[in-house]
């Protein structure tokens, strides 16, 4: 029943998803104590292997591991032998020799975490691989929505807005939401909304049309300034006007009582206007807090091989 690795949402059973979401609750409860740390993973080591820059996910995993009393080592990629041309296999062999128990990997190439998982006894957690998957983001999104809908997500409508095509967040989060019987729709420029993909996902290119679908939640994807997105839009100002939450749209989603989500970090004035940062039904800060609880639940649940 216990798993060694967490590589994507698609390979999890529904019971496993439910278990992880349930188990995150007692971890979140710890945050209200003066001592937020528990000894559950005392003596275990977690290695952070980030080939792509990330501030949020990296610190979230690091805080989660430390609150479980694990030792955290950062394998600092830009300064490491990767620049000297050391292959991933050699790196993993080195890490294997260090007898690390958990490896948290982020890489630009899809399926690389899965390849690493096959080479090591350590538990491998995918912290984002290319446009493939970001399972802990999906779990924290589902957990956050379950907090506002304790009765369950069945029939709830989530509209995901942005560059769906290149987004592992869109892929993983819509997969988990579908599993939990929520309804998902995509809104984005025609060239950035995949024609194929999960069934029963409505696709919109026009904001007004999408709002007629009557979503309960609007989920803005981050515009990846450092990646390819920019070239698909005439300008960021234009993007904001067409797909962003403008002050005017904010009034409307407020009036209709919609929840607002974003994986962070927000590009102000692009996905969200300034006013949206203080929106009363914004779940963005809660997503950050819940990310730690969910990642603690994942680390506690996975079992490295050979134990």
């Amino acid at each position, binding site marked *: 029943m216990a798993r060694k690795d967490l590589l994507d949402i698609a390979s999890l059973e529904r019971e496993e998803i439910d278990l992880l979401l349930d188990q995150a609750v007692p971890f979140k*409860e710890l945050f209200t*104590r003066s*001592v937020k740390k*528990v000894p559950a993973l005392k003596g275990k080591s977690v290695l952070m292997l980030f080939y792509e820059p990330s501030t949020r996910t990296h610190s979230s995993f690091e805080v989660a591991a430390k609150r479980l009393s694990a030792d955290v080592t950062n394998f600092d990629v830009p300064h490491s032998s990767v620049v000297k041309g050391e292959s991933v296999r050699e790196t993993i062999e080195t890490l294997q020799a260090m007898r690390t128990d958990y490896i948290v990997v982020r890489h630009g190439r899809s399926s690389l975490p899965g390849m690493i998982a096959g080479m090591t006894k350590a538990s491998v957690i995918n912290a984002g691989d290319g446009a493939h998957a970001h399972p802990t983001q999906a779990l924290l999104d589902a957990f956050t929505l379950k907090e506002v809908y304790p009765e369950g997500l069945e029939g709830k409508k989530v509209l995901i807005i942005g560059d769906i095509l290149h987004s592992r967040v869109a892929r993983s989060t819509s997969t988990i939401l579908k599993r939990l019987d929520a309804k998902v729709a995509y809104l984005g420029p025609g060239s950035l909304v995949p024609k194929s993909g999960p069934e029963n996902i409505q696709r919109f290119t026009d904001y007004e049309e999408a709002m007629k679908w009557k979503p309960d939640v609007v989920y803005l994807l981050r515009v990846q300034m450092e990646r390819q997105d920019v070239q698909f839009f005439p300008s960021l100002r234009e993007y904001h006007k067409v797909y962003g939450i403008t002050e005017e749209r904010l009034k409307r989603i407020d009036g209709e009582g919609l929840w607002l989500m974003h994986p962070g970090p927000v590009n102000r004035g692009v996905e969200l206007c300034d006013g949206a940062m203080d929106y009363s039904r914004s779940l963005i800060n809660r997503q950050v807090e819940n990310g730690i609880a969910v990642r603690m639940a994942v680390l*506690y649940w996975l*079992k490295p091989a050979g*134990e």
Partner: protein
Amino acid sequence: MSRILGPDDIEQGIVALAAAIRGRTAGKAIALVGIRSRGDEVAERLCNRLAEEDRELELGVLDISLYRDDYEHLHENPKLQESDIPFTVDGAHIILVDDVLFTGRTIRAALDALSDYGRPAKVELAVLIDRGHREMPVQPDYVGIHLETSRLDHVLVSLEAADGEDKIEIVEKNPG
């Protein structure tokens, strides 16, 4: 071979425990903290009995899964539940409550967990059943039922709310 104790024995045990706690803490503010699972139900039943008296009485629940020293061997997927300590631990007189006291390891873990909530003025231990065979320097302050067992016996406790009936089953395992 197995022996069975029924609802009457358990009721008597609870009554004896409540009487012992009353005898030494009458009029004082105390907080009962039940250890999941089953200890929480014992604590709740004690609380119902002690609640009639004129004094401050708090009730909390502690899940100690994250503090165990043997969790890896326990089961593949330890089911973790929430703790609920709805009062200030600092300076409180706390009585930890569990169903069965055996090796004492659970209590060691519970004391660690409790200390992460604050610094109680005093911590005591009340157990419904003391079956002996300690592996840690832990002794109960209040005992409902003293049970003679051998080290290898299994003591299986069922309680009304959690399991639908009050029952203690002692499954005897004779070595060799």
